[in-house]
């Protein structure tokens, strides 16, 4: 695939909110990049900093975290997740990765259009800010 225009995106979803929302985009037959790979979690708060860094190392150009936001069924996990992503961004910077290569957002069970719109914007941002060695 053309890496410049078709970055590989890891999408982290949640069982309670965004996974059904992403399914809903499929039910509505909304098209988005095929180079996107969804994993299903109970809450992304489970992932330590190294998880994100290893995913970048493995070859992902962007990580899109579709959390439940403040609607999470678990107490205070969004706050903890937000703090963790700040640490991830700091580590990314050290490795020459751009902050636009990661996005923390909230996607609900019926946020199909919103999800596709945001994902497309995210991919545009990733393409725009890819490090030169990959962009070339």
């Amino acid at each position, binding site marked *: 695939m053309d890496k410049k225009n078709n970055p590989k995106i890891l999408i982290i979803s949640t069982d309670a909110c965004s996974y059904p929302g992403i399914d809903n*985009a499929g039910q509505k*037959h909304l098209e988005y990049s*095929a180079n996107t790979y969804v994993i299903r979690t109970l809450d992304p708060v489970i992932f330590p900093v190294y998880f994100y860094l290893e995913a970048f190392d493995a070859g992902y150009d962007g990580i899109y975290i579709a959390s439940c936001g403040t609607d999470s069924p678990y107490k205070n996990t969004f706050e903890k997740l937000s703090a963790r992503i700040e640490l991830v961004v700091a580590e990314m910077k050290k490795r020459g990765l751009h902050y636009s290569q990661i996005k923390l957002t909230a996607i609900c069970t019926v946020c199909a259009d919103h999800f596709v719109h945001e994902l497309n914007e995210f991919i545009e941002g990733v393409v725009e800010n890819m490090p030169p060695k990959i962009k070339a």
Partner: protein
Amino acid sequence: MNDKKLEKLGVYVCHCGGNISDYVNTSKVAEVIQQEPEVHMAKDFIFMCSDAGQKMIAEDIKANDLTHVIVASCSPRLHHMTFQKVVSEAGINPFTYRHVNIREQVSWVTSHDEPAATEKAIRLIRGAISAVVRLQELAAIEKQMIQVGAVIGGGVSGMTAALDIANQGLPVHLIESSPVLGGRTLDLDKLYPYEIPADKFVQNLIKKINSNENIYIHLNTEVVDTAGTIGDFTLKLKRADNKLVNTEEMQSFEIIENESDAINVDELHVGTITIATGFDTYVPLDGEYGYGKSKQVITLPDLIMHLNSYKKKRLEINGKIINKVAMIHCVGSRQIEDVHPLREGATLNNGCSRTCCTATLQQANRLKDMFPDIDIYDLYRDIRTYGEKEVYYKKASENNVIFIKYPDEEIPQVDTNGSLKIRTVDELTYGLEVEVEVDLIVLAVAMIPRAKPRLIETLSLATGVNGFLQEAHVKLQPVESPVDGIFYAGTAQGPKDVRESTMSASATSVKASTLLKKEIVELSPYIAEVNTEICDGNGDCITQCEYNAISIVPIDDGKKQAIITPALCVSCGACVPACKKNAIKLNGYEITTILAEVKAMVKEVIL
């Protein structure tokens, strides 16, 4: 693990009758996947979920001694459990089954690029292969159920919840902190939609409760502490000795505590808890719309209570004859930052209280029915008499109630110096400034969360942005808390009218009764687990657990170790990254397994 060879995997790719195979080359997917070293067999078939599809998988498992199965088809939300059952019946641990979504997340979103869709399907299945061989065999955790329910809160929601549970033949404790049952409904007028007087409605419920032998009433009683988990909760109760039962009121509502109820119970042991603790009404700030500055500025609940016992032919409030009334909506609701005043330390309540538009117009109509000559000005932002409640709006219009729509960010100004005046801008007349002299201002105050911090803390419950109790999922688990065995009923969860509250209570009771009917309850195996060989008991994980599921215990040689109480763990995973030694994992969601899956998905695909 079983004795079978680990990597003997069957992968089944579904056509979904063309829903997948029209956009994904499913036979190519099976062909490529067949080459993976762990894969013993890969097949594609028209409908994996059909009887024929399920039978094929079961027969393959037995004939080939398969150890793991992956089905790539529709969303796991539809058929994960179907195939878990198939593999389980064929002798494979159901928690090692893996489902790959190549319909909702591949074919239906990549319908114009078959090579790309095919490649994506292959990558997702490769990820699943990498994960499935690492999955642990798990088993649901079984626990004895105490087949007794508890309902905290004796308003209409609590009473309905208790009655519905009791009508299933199950004993239930109904715990109310005040001396009487009925809650805030006792303060209301007539109830939508049948205009039944609120007190009659409450009396009817109380009669049913008193005649039901399965219900144990605890009045004047607070839950001061809780312990335990689903199937075996302990509630510590405190009966307020200083709150004497109002016998006159009790007799009027025929509440009689049975002898068994009157025992001063300190502790209850129950299998489920239903929280029906209700709401509070917003108290306007001093000076907000003139409240507290003039006795002629009152709240809507004040007006309702006043009218409930009013017999005179002319309306008189605080010694003043009332000829003109202004009613202001959204007081304490739908608050906007820098527009609405806030109490110190209070958070903005940007939610709609849902019931007050209807209640305000109901009382406007009531005033017109009782005192036809009265003039009423209704100052609103939006009228939200949803559904059939529109009849109140229609009737108010026919009653010549004068509607004034004020802008969201320009709240009406009240002048309490001298005569009572109200000034605002009317959007219905394209921004005309209006000033009206009135005798009474009625504030339609918000429903706000009832402060029960101790109960919320002790039960580890979550609250939403506006402070009401937050359900596990707004659509899929609307009356369940994130904690197993704890349910919500009525306005503890958010603004509702009486009908909606009792409906939610009945929904809750179905959930609670379903559990209480079981002698053994099965808990999710997806819980955190400590690797005792690595854990040094430093306690970093404890600070991350919001559910008191982790404790540190001493072990040999003065060392410490973290232990998890399985029934308290809600599977959030917050403790996992807290451990710098990686000594905690969430069963079924191990980081190493997910990373392996993530890495396997980026490997090159050659079609």
